[in-house]
């Protein structure tokens, strides 16, 4: 199979899904009305609720949801063969992914911009809100751990990465200073700081970490884990304009340019897949069902998107008709990003043995290799391309990590400040979040951690679909288009979390793991079981709510008769 064929298939699925399926739902079920006032216009406060052009929101939504997950997932999942991964990316995005993103924005837009906490309280039960918030806390912890692992393995596997990462950080801090303190022109700031970041990428090739720090330190997982979480610590504690935002600003240009030129490179080289279409149902990380369906998360369906769509985007839609291009359209673009990652994993190695050697070093190494190869088609030297790809991978991971750690700092303060006022301190909350993240990163096998993260993420998606289904039923609208995807995701993710938790805890109980692996397996296994318990409680509450709406609907039908 040729890579361009995969991309063309992706375009076709995106076109049909957006132009026909999404349009049908938007016009016939949700009945988007351009004349109806959106929360952005109704409650316009120039801050949270602000009507914004759909083109800006398209970029904002894409930047918010495109992290490391649509890239890492397919790179791991290709171990089952590229064909099942391709079918899940295309089918998942077509039947579930865009449905979740779009409907999350629609439900919030039709409910005065309410967030999921408030909606779950209103539509399901008061207890559902508390459980959902606790679920989100542990889900974010898994993100910190899974993405932290990506950063560590990339820093070790690609020696150019640390220097490039350092210069990107310097460029970001300088951008913050220039924009907010020196009031410099934005174009000048962008040009200067992006050039500094690019210089750092080049410097990474001539001053790799093993030359500067020595082989032992440059291969130290502890060192790079500390570096990643110190980075997140500063991002969470410093004023956001000084560190987190400007680093994200500079990084977005690096990532955007890399993806743009990388995809052009795919069309130029148009390689064939060298890895097998299908290998085996069961592999080391687990069976194809349910594990592959949670390994590929964001490229097919992701609960993270529902949080962004409801709490961010829905409050800025200036027109109900914009929900489809922003919610559904961006999800299909994310699907293309996942296909790009699948193409990288499936085409740049001559054999499964070569791929196996690369994946042992981490998925970031594979991604960077792919970016290097495809940007090489445009004339970029391979070593520069590797350095570029490595910093893209690091940046895609840390931008989400720092947001997560910042959120966990606030959540720790809110949840634990009644126990002791010390938890109100920003440093204490951040330190706790970073410490928990580091423990996950340094203990246990990273592929299990990825599966747990994926499972939690997809479970969040099924909970979002449950909420939307409850709302649709309360409005008397057809709900099959969200109900059946919700059932599928719920069963699959519960099965994946149970399977992974069992695998982890079984090793602990049987004494097969010792030392840090014992700690890691125990922690991951217990977090997995907690998420399952929380999801089952929410599921029971959800079923009660759905039954309530069914009864109300039946009573209304009887009354009409």
């Amino acid at each position, binding site marked *: 199979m040729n890579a361009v064929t995969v991309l063309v298939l992706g375009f076709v699925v995106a076109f049909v899904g957006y132009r026909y399926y999404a349009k049908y739902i938007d016009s016939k079920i949700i009945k988007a009305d351009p004349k109806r006032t959106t929360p952005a216009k109704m409650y316009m406060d120039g801050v949270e609720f602000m009507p*914004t052009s759909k083109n800006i929101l398209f970029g*904002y939504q894409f930047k918010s949801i495109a992290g490391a997950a649509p890239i890492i997932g397919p790179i791991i999942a290709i171990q089952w063969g590229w064909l099942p991964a391709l079918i899940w990316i295309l089918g998942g995005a077509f039947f579930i992914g865009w449905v979740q993103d779009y409907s999350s924005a629609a439900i919030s837009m039709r409910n005065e911009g309410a967030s999921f906490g408030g909606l779950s309280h209103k539509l399901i039960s008061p207890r559902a809100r508390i459980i959902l918030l606790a679920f989100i806390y542990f889900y974010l912890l898994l993100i910190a751990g899974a993405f932290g692992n990506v950063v560590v393995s990339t820093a070790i596997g690609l020696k150019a990465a640390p220097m490039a990462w350092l210069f990107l950080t310097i460029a970001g801090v300088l951008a913050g200073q220039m924009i907010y303190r020196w009031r410099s022109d934005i174009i000048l700031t962008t040009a200067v700081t992006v050039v500094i970041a690019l210089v750092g990428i080049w410097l990474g090739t001539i001053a790799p970490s093993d030359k500067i720090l020595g082989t032992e330190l440059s291969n130290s997982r502890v060192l790079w884990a500390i570096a990643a979480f110190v980075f997140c610590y500063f991002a969470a504690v410093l004023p956001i304009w000084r560190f987190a935002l400007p680093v994200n600003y500079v990084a977005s240009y690096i990532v955007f340019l890399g993806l743009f030129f990388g995809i052009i490179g795919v069309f130029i080289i148009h390689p064939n897949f060298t890895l097998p279409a299908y290998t085996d149902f069961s592999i080391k990380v687990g069976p194809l069902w349910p594990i592959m369906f949670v390994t590929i998360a964001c490229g097919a369906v992701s609960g993270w998107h529902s949080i962004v769509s409801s709490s961010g985007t829905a409050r800025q839609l200036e027109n109900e008709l914009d929900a489809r291009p922003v919610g559904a359209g961006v999800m299909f673009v994310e699907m293309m990003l996942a296909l790009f990652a699948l193409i990288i994993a499936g085409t740049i190695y001559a054999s499964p043995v070569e791929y196996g050697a690369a994946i042992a070093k981490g998925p970031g190494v594979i991604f960077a290799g792919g970016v290097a190869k495809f940007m090489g088609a445009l004339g970029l030297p391979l070593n520069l391309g590797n350095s570029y790809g490595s910093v893209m991978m690091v940046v895609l991971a840390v931008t989400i990590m720092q947001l997560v750690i910042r959120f966990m700092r606030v959540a720790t303060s809110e949840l634990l400040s009644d126990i002791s006022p010390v938890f109100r301190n920003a440093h204490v909350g951040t330190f706790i979040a970073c410490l928990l993240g580091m423990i996950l990163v340094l203990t246990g096998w990273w592929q299990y951690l990825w599966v747990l993260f994926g499972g939690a993420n997809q479970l969040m998606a099924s909970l979002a679909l449950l909420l939307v289904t409850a709302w649709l039923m309360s409005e008397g609208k057809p709900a099959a288009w969200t109900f059946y995807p919700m059932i599928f995701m719920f069963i699959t993710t519960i099965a994946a979390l149970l399977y992974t938790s069992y695998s982890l805890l079984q090793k602990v109980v049987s004494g097969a793991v010792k030392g840090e692996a014992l700690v890691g397996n125990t922690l991951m296994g217990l977090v997995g079981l907690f998420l399952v318990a929380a999801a089952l409680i929410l599921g029971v509450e959800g079923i009660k709510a759905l039954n309530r709406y069914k009864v109300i609907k039946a009573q209304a039908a009887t009354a009409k008769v």
Partner: protein
Amino acid sequence: MSDDEKKKSGFFQAVKEFVYGVAAHDSARFALKTRASMEHLFILITMGDMLGVPILPPYYSLRLLPYVVPQISTWKRRMLREKDLTDSLA
């Protein structure tokens, strides 16, 4: 402007807005939220009694308290003393 030119400028405008959305929209939103939180704090301090949270009156009273304490009993007697027309004769 011809239709083609309008479409082209519309397309470039859309690309500009997309790039802004990717790179800078979250920074702009954060700056707005920061300004809003300061404004809201200012309004809370000055108008907090609308929400049942009196801040300014007790704050200034407390600052002036050390200076007026010696005269408070005299002030109270004067304000609350019964007055009549004959007070104006003396």
